[in-house]
């Protein structure tokens, strides 16, 4: 649902933002759950540290959803926004994707070393994107 529709439906703007982030996060987590099963079946993968795997997936998803909600609202105001959205969003999310990949490498036993620092780093990204998203969603809905 478009964030503007949420506002017209009576939600306040910060509520629309958090609702959009939550909806995106749930969709992404559902896709990740299906992919995890597919990876386990087709690639014969053993999840040695399931807590770390879930931790990395959760915080990375929140970061991606927070940035995605803001850029989604932004792209909706642009001509050919749907084409531009991945081009704008992918560079912004690249550090999250790299961090999550490194975290999964540790979680799946492909890389030695501690995995929780990656979760902490991804958590920082998530907090930063959530904060910026909450602050920037309002002007985007009002003026753009």
């Amino acid at each position: 649902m478009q964030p503007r529709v949420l506002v017209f439906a009576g939600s306040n703007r910060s509520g629309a933002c958090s609702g959009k982030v939550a909806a995106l996060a749930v969709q992404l987590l559902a896709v990740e759950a299906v992919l995890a099963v597919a990876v386990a079946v087709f690639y014969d993968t053993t999840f040695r540290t399931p807590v770390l795997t879930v931790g990395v997936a959760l915080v990375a998803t929140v970061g991606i959803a927070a940035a995605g909600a803001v850029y989604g609202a932004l792209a909706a105001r642009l001509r050919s926004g749907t084409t531009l959205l991945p081009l704008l969003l992918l560079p912004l999310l690249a550090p999250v994707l790299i961090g999550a990949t490194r975290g999964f490498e540790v979680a799946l036993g492909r890389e030695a070393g501690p995995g929780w620092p990656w979760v902490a780093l991804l958590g920082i990204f998530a907090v930063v994107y959530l904060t910026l998203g909450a602050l920037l969603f309002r002007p985007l809905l009002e003026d753009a």
Partner: protein
Amino acid sequence: MTVDNPTTGAGRPPGAASDRPTGPPTTGSTATRVLGVISLVGIAALVVLGVFLTPADAELGDTIRILYMHVPTVSTAYLAFVITAIASVMYLWKRTEFWDLLAASSAELGVLFFALTILNGMLWGKITWGVFWRWEPRLTTTAVLMLTYVGYLAVRQIPNDTRTRGTISAVIGIMAVVNIPITHKAVDWWRGLHQEKTIFGTVDPDMKGLQLFTAYLGLTVFLVLFSWLLIHRFRVAWLAERAADVGVDAAIAERRAERAVPSSAGGAS
């Protein structure tokens, strides 16, 4: 399109708003000329010092001469992107054209200096690693940061009203600045091939004497050069907006004149 003198308003079409802000008819001023002279003299001094007078480094050899340009260009680019972010915040707060154009002008120059950084970094890579490019952490995050700001500039080119364009680009300008510390810390977080230390935590701290002086001269010269270019770019952007305003005003006046002619002709009959 009629473009009148932005200072005097001469040639302004009928119906044009007279309360629109006007700027100087030129982008030059005494201050910019002084900055320009300092920049050019400084660049000449940097070339003489960096290429001819400083000794080769014991470890890096002659490739250290590339660092005299590499560190200043990347530092200036970071500064430009930070200015873009601050101006974007100010635009969302104050909603004035000044902050929007300042953010855009600074981002353009940031991309220019960042492109120079990547180019001279590639030269250093070719000499040191044997290849122009490797997908190692610092280079990858640098390419990503460059793409982010190219996207910012692309969004600004999409036709839109000025307020929407300003808001959207301000949001991107603020979100994108998050990638700067990530690019800077990429060497520590994701171990790679890139040089670990340079000035202000990034030029080799073992630099001494003329080498260190040249490195700091490079930083100073590029900061002055950036200031010079930023003032000019901002003024060009400002004048372009004024010219666009005049074009819109002229079009409105023409339509009004077209509508007025048939009605007055009808009244006469």
